[in-house]
């Protein structure tokens, strides 16, 4: 296989892996935003807390998988408690109050985590069997752990698809997303539905945090940078739409990783290495925002708008 072929293949897989993890975050965010009309900046904090819980439980139980399960369960409970105790009171307020309220939660979550776990990053290692590479094609090795992330991400996406399109609770969620008032009038217990959706979104956050923990670092503030990307994803995909979140996340993941590999190469070719070193990474990092601007220009409601 040629060098360029390997590069494109590996970058596509990396983009898929990154996109699927963004999807886990964006799915919860878009449901909360679409159904409850609630801007939740604390979503990234659930991702951070989830990663910390997974790391702590993994060390305590000496098993990555047990840690992951315990962390997801703990974060889901925490998410539901948060909804019942605080966020429920913000639904009727305007978006500015919601932004301020959830931003306060974000700050408190960061400082709380700093108090409990300290300010140094916590180490989380992948399960020993998945630490090495696997040979996908003759001469092409790919990290086993990234393959696992891709597999889990695809499985969760399929599960969500079935849940939303084929089950009764999914029907209620869709009804809530397309017309909240009508759904309430038709007898859907919106309060319980909101709490359940919020807990489910929190569980997805913890899953993403736990899976990305061994690749990235479990540290204070890890939620903010990825939260911005998750918002970009739901704006591109269309607010409230799971399908939009899925394709938006894959698009952002692939464009971001492809841009980081290909733009510096292209600049290197046209302008020489000095200019490429400066301009290449800068352009690569704004690429997804250019994408978002383009989508907003031509399709202001996103690629898959949920509200008719």
């Amino acid at each position: 296989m040629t060098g360029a072929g390997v590069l494109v293949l590996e970058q596509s897989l990396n983009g898929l892996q990154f996109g699927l993890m963004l999807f886990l975050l964006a799915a919860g965010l878009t449901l909360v935003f679409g159904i409850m009309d609630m801007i939740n900046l604390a979503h990234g904090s659930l991702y951070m807390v989830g990663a910390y819980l997974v790391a702590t439980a993994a060390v305590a139980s000496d098993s990555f998988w047990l840690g992951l399960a315990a962390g997801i369960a703990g974060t889901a409970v925490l998410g539901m408690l948060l909804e019942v105790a605080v966020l429920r009171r913000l639904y009727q307020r305007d978006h500015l109050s919601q932004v301020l309220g959830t931003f306060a939660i974000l700050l408190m979550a960061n400082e709380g985590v700093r108090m409990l776990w300290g300010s140094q990053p916590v180490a989380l290692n992948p399960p020993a069997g998945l630490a090495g590479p696997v040979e996908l094609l003759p001469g092409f090795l790919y990290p086993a752990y990234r393959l696992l992330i891709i597999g889990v991400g695809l499985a969760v996406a399929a599960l969500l698809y079935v849940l939303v399109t084929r089950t009764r609770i999914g029907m209620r969620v869709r009804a809530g997303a397309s017309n909240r008032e009508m759904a309430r009038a038709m007898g859907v217990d919106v309060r319980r539905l909101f709490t359940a959706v919020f807990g489910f979104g929190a569980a997805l956050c913890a899953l993403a945090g736990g899976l990305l923990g061994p690749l990235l670092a479990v540290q204070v503030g890890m939620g903010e940078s990825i939260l911005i990307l998750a918002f970009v994803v739901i704006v591109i995909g269309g607010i409230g739409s799971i399908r939009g979140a899925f394709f938006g996340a894959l698009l952002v993941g692939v464009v971001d990783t492809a841009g980081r590999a290909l733009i510096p190469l292209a600049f290197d070719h046209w302008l020489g290495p000095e200019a490429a070193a400066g301009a290449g990474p800068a352009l690569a990092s704004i690429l997804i925002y250019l994408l978002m601007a383009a989508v907003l220009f031509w399709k202001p409601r996103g690629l898959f708008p949920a509200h008719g």
Partner: protein
Amino acid sequence: MQTVAASPSRPPMLATLAAFAALACAAPLAQAADAVKVGLLSTLSGPGAGLGVDIRDGFQLAVKQGGGKLGGLPAEVVVADDQQSPDVARQTADRLIKRDKVDFMTGIVFSNVMLAVGAPTFQSKTFYVSANAGPSQYAGEQCNPYFFSASYQNDNLHEAVGKTVADKGFKRVALLAPNYPAGKDALAGFKRFYKGEIALESYTPLNQLDYGAEIAKMRAAKPDAVYIFLPGGLGINFIKQFVGSGLSKDMTLFGPGFSADEDVIRAVGAPMLGMFNSSLWAHDLDNAANKRFVADFQKEYGRLPTLYAAQGYDAARLIDGAVRDVKGRLDDKAAVRKALEAARFESVRGPFRFNTNHFPIQDYYLRVVTQDAQGRVTNRTLGTVFRNHADAYVGACKMPAA
């Protein structure tokens, strides 16, 4: 996310401080101080925290060994966190200098933070003894009588690896560094001694933790060696991902000591075996000062020291020697400067002296990550790459006379 509120009472406070400063300057004769105060401003949170913690622990170990004294005077070490942010560092340094009135400043890990703190520190005639950051600016044209590097000049460790890679006969090298001043200095230093082909040169954002894209580029470019300058958590992530991708079988990984020290080894473990790296110090260097340092550090903190800890320790010992030399007369700035320049202390790294730009002339070693006799994964010193090595910028420094 951190915000620091501006103090509403700033103008009157500044005026008071200025008045105090004027009074202090008016003191006629230098008298022996009754204590020595050190401001240890370092990165104690975020991905770079491990580095700052080791500098702090190394420094405090030296103070503890001296019975809580530096140069015969009771020592007070004021520890503060710069959060790896130049803005926070500058404000905190202001507080240490003006309110706490420290005699020496030390501890900064990152060069961009150092450059923000340097100017106000030198202006207040406070001596800065660097336990890590050694930016090229302060070694060359902006060299300053109040700045002393007890560590190295940023390029040095990279120069040592560049020479090693060239000596070992590697022909195609891929380079990777963060996109900030020290990252560019690093690769410039490497290329000063390695003249072969550069298969790939990548700069990544300083907060990037996923190196999937860079690893894919390396796989496509097929270099025979890879050189990374990724301090702290960045290096931990890269090495894990590099080994996970299977590239470590085809390419030899090189780094400066920062990318392969005990902090990184603790986090990565066995996959690091065989990584070559350069350092001005190693825990197995055979000299009396080092043996005592390594043994006491392990006893005190239960882990092996890193080069950051060694630099923090040496910074304290350098201050200790200087304070003793001037017999505690810390107000006599010219005398303190001369005493620091003389550097009368036994460094844990062996021979140590200052060049005219207040940067060290010292040896640089090649280390490799191996398993020692007790089965621990750790560094072993292979040999000396440079003897009495000076930095490349000293010619541009016109150090003002005392």
